[in-house]
């Protein structure tokens, strides 16, 4: 009585599918495309500034179209656009990474603790979360950014990208917290969590050792969401003049382009590249998120592959019967 009886899967179908999962490559087209895109942009952001001209040097001829000396032309004030875009990418990625991480940590604390402990802790944490959810995000960020940036005594920090990143992080965790709370609540009812409680584990250990490892795909997805929103949020803030004017980010470049009437003067080389990179960051991260979704929910990944295999087998004459088997 070999494999089929001792196999852990419940049915033959599940058995077949789980064997398949082990032999299928974990990298799908989406994942590879997304990773390549993000890797390229990150590389550009890290290495680019070392290779370009000084982004703060306004000594060049203004509004030059792309040419051999300035591959992306120059801006109205004489800055080299490529240099600005390169350091801007770095700036935007920095804001995205910091804000995303801060938001995730806050979401973890508010969400997982509320979901696991329930009761009074849940009520209090959820009250705070709901307040954060209800307040409109962008206006809140604007108000906080405006207030902070006009506070005395913060000096250079007031207009830095670090501050903007922190503000974005502190205002952006509520949505993730709700998702994490829901998942933590459902995981709390799993038998293996009850088993470790019965074995005598302390609550914090149960959260870290039993629940968090099973949340990793979800955490990765939430982090990526956080980064996307932070990058876009920062661009939006900068566009409104509330961004980190002390630093250079893609958003500040766009803001400069807007105030410098780039569209009116037809200087496409000034506003298209930063916009395009922001869009590419969003696309690449979203593709990675879809790929993570598929890993977490195998039905999404396996259904088309399964149907493809069945079609292939039929075409090669293995199957009998009409075409309308339910797929």
């Amino acid at each position: 009585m070999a494999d089929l009886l001792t196999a852990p899967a419940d049915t033959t179908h599940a058995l077949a599918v789980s064997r398949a999962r082990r032999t299928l490559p974990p990298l799908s087209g989406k994942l590879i495309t997304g990773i390549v895109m993000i890797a390229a942009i990150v590389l550009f952001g890290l290495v680019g500034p070392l290779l370009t001209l000084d982004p703060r040097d306004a000594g060049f001829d203004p509004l030059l179209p792309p040419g051999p000396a300035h591959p992306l032309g120059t801006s109205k004030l004489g800055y080299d656009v490529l240099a600005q875009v390169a350091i801007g990418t770095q700036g935007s990625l920095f804001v995205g990474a910091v804000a995303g991480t801060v938001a995730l940590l806050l979401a973890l604390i508010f969400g997982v603790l509320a979901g696991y402990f329930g009761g009074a802790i849940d009520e209090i944490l959820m009250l705070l979360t709901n307040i954060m959810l209800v307040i409109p995000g962008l206006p809140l960020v604007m108000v906080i950014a405006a207030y902070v940036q006009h506070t005395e005594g913060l000096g250079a920090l007031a207009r830095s990208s670090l501050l903007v990143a922190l503000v974005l992080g502190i205002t952006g965790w509520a949505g993730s917290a709700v998702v994490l709370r829901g998942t933590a609540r459902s995981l709390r009812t799993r038998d293996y969590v009850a088993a470790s409680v019965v074995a005598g584990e302390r609550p914090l250990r149960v959260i870290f050792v039993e629940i968090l490892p099973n949340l990793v795909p979800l955490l990765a997805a939430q982090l990526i969401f956080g980064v996307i929103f932070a990058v876009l949020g920062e661009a939006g803030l900068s566009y409104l003049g509330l961004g980190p004017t002390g630093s250079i980010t893609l958003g500040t470049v766009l803001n400069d382009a807007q105030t410098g009437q780039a569209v009116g003067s037809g200087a496409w080389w000034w506003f298209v590249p930063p916009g395009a990179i922001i869009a590419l960051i969003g696309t690449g991260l979203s593709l990675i998120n879809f790929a993570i979704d598929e890993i977490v929910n195998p039905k999404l990944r396996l259904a088309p592959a399964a149907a493809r295999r069945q079609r292939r087998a039929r075409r090669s004459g293995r199957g009998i019967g009409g075409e309308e088997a339910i797929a």
Partner: protein
Amino acid sequence: MSTDAVASHVLEARNLVKDFHLRSGLRTTTLHAVNDVSFSVAAGRTLALVGESGSGKSTIARMLMKLETPTSGRILLDGKATGRRGRELAVYRSEVQMVFQDPFASLNPFHTIVHHLERPIRIHHPRLTGAEVRARALELLERVRLSPAESFADRRPHELSGGQRQRVAIARALAPGARFIVADEPVSMLDVSIRLGVLNLLADLQREENLGVLYITHDLATARHFSDEIMVLYKGDVVERGPADEVILNPQHEYTRTLLAAAPEPENLGRLRDEVRAELGGL
């Protein structure tokens, strides 16, 4: 036997009551899940708790494992009241353990088999070294006949069959050195042909360790064969209790009789068909 000996080595539930308050819109109804249930599990003996869904048997298990607080009633270990927090709870947990119903859900898919055993050992024997803890974990695997233990230790749950996982669950229940085991439908989710093997293992371990076992099930047949005493639960009340053979062969309460009549019995082959035919033929 002196009274001391009677009180010792017994896990006792006295007058357990559990009510749940369900909210439906603006109204609140009270669900009386467990109504004044008392029983005791003695070392070396098995008590079967038989009931269908809604009988309260799972709630009783959770109360015994201190996962739920009784609305009223007490749980006594060796004649002494048991606490719900701190040191008292830790001691209780080292004496009373549980085997869960679902072999696929009671092991964390993220961790290795040996991790599941090492954690309880470490918690209840904090002075042991890492090597000693692992050695004990491997020994436990051997005792539940997962041999050679080394080959099972570092696997993950999804690599084991249902029966093997349930053996790991039994090993985990024994890891802290428990004297009482609450087995909540330990084989109902396993393939039929391996159920007896797992129940026999539990029976062997009980004999070797002089464990007290509370066997919760809806299956009267295995309850009869694997326990000394049976208690029948219906909607939170104990409707019948007595020695296993007595309850099965000479049921007193109507519900017990209904349960017995409803259980599939191959000796009755063809009877249902004839009954139905006679009933319809008479129309």
